[in-house]
């Protein structure tokens, strides 16, 4: 079948056909199982906190990818959702003493709510103007977090307790936390996959293919984009909340514009509009930051160089190129 021949120009961003033939579905099932297997084995050979960090950033990038890859909207402000959720979860767990699942829920709700406001303001503009508005609003969120009391300014929220899940399972144990993070990550990944391959996802695909035509069929394109924006913000928030529990801190770094850049970097390196691209991208980028840490300030430079090489060598990202070579969807 030529249905997913990625050579067509319109396929530069995102996958080709939205609805999945049976064989593609079977491939995805295998890949998801493989990924689950990897996540089970990984902490046996790699430091668990590192793996958890990778998963958090992978989820963050997956959320960003939902918006860019499937709605064609480039947000420069996703740090706001990631960071705000981290703060809210941190505050709820530490100051209010909430259990982790409730603290996470609050973080996600805060991000989705913030996403609704930012999205509603940005969605009316197209292209770079949309991106600029998200950036500007995210900067406002940053300054809010810098000034607000509960975020503790430059110090951030430190020593966030991981607490006991449902008041029962103690997450201060790295292994218990690992299982929790892994399960939530897989569930979120599957949920994102479902969104893309849902009736809603089909409409989103039509809007991206030809917006005026979709509108002329009676689809209020702005509403669909806004819904996607809110979903994306919510999942970015989930990533931020999890990260707050893993690292036990929530700081200004989490809401800084460079965190938005991180999501973009990870997604582009891995492959926009692919299911597994953001995960592969996250492994590469986070590993790089970790192992290049001794370079100090040069990390950014090294990262920049690798980014440029990546974009020049494979514009569709690692997984995107792989998918094209293998003539399958990944």
């Amino acid at each position, binding site marked *: 079948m*030529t*249905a997913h021949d990625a050579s*067509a120009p*319109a*396929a530069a961003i995102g996958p*080709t*056909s*939205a*609805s*999945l033939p049976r064989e593609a579905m079977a491939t995805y099932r295998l890949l998801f199982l493989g990924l689950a297997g990897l996540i089970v084995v990984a902490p046996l050979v790699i430091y668990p906190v590192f793996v958890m960090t990778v998963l958090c950033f992978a989820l963050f990038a997956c959320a960003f990818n939902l918006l860019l890859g499937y709605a064609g909207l480039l947000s420069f402000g996703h740090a706001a959702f990631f960071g705000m959720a981290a703060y809210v979860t941190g505050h709820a767990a530490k100051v209010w003493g909430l259990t982790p699942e409730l603290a996470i829920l609050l973080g996600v709700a805060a991000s989705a709510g913030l996403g609704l406001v930012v999205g509603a303001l940005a969605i009316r503009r197209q292209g770079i103007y949309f991106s600029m508005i998200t950036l500007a609003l995210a900067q406002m969120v940053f300054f809010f977090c810098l000034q607000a009391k509960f975020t503790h300014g430059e110090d951030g929220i430190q020593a966030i307790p991981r607490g006991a899940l449902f008041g029962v399972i103690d997450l201060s144990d790295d292994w218990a936390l690992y299982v929790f993070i892994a399960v939530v990550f897989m569930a979120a990944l599957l949920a994102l996959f*479902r*969104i893309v*391959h*849902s*009736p*809603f*996802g*089909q*409409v989103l*695909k*039509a809007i991206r*293919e*030809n917006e*005026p*035509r*979709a*509108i*002329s*069929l*009676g*689809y*209020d*394109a702005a509403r*669909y984009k806004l*819904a996607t924006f809110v*979903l994306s913000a919510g999942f970015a928030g989930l990533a931020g909340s999890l990260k707050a529990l893993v690292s036990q801190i929530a700081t200004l770094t989490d809401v800084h514009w460079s965190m938005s850049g991180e999501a973009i970097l990870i997604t582009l390196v891995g492959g926009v509009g692919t299911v597994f691209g953001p995960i592969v991208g996250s492994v590469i980028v986070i590993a790089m930051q970790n192992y290049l840490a001794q370079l100090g300030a040069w990390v950014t430079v090294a990262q920049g160089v690798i980014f440029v090489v990546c974009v020049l060598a494979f514009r569709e990202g690692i997984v995107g190129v792989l998918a094209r070579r293998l003539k399958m969807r990944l």
Partner: protein
Amino acid sequence: MDGEHILETEGLSKSFGGFAAVSDVGLRVKRGTIHALIGPNGAGKTTCFNLLTKFLAPTAGSIRYNGRDITRTNAAGIAQLGLVRSFQISAVFLHLTVLENVRVALQRQRGASFDFWRSEKVLKRYDAAAMALLEEFGLAEVAHREATELSYGRKRALELATTLALEPEMMLLDEPMAGMGHEDIARIAGLIRKAAAGRTILMVEHNLSVVADLSDRITVLARGKVLAEGDYAAVSADPRVIEAYIGAGHA
């Protein structure tokens, strides 16, 4: 309320900067007819369509559809009221399959469009209806191809099928035959005639023999203004119309 006319405009105008692309157009389309909107290039026909379907906001004037003022309704809302347009440049969803193209329209009309938590498999319930339409338009054997692989003529047929999937009460077709060969023109004309049963069609078309053949009534637009209106015989004999066409370099 005037039940005889499904669409009525009054003083409809649009200017771009200082340039009046459409000025003071009063258009009345009778229910159940095929009404043609013709005129030389740049006369403002497409702009009119854009105004009627709210892809552009009018500078002045009002639009009534089914006795209801739709001047402030948004583009998606207009379609939801049953007034659906096509585009001068063929508009299909290139990287959806032919079946999916039609299904997207069925889905909008019959629901499930916002369900992001369900599997897309629920859309299979529209497959039969979509296939029936494709059958009618001679597209059944390419149902599972991506639309981008179709010939130009077939893309236009698909566009028409997708529009009809919404069962619109009124269709606006912008040059449905543009860029087509003889056989395709005859085929599309047949499809339009069939589609016209039980609905109203407003059509922009440069091919005058098609216009003569299909339309019950014709409005001639030139430089944004209504120049003449009537049946084909009356309009084609009108010296102002002939002059407008010759003046614009048309035969």
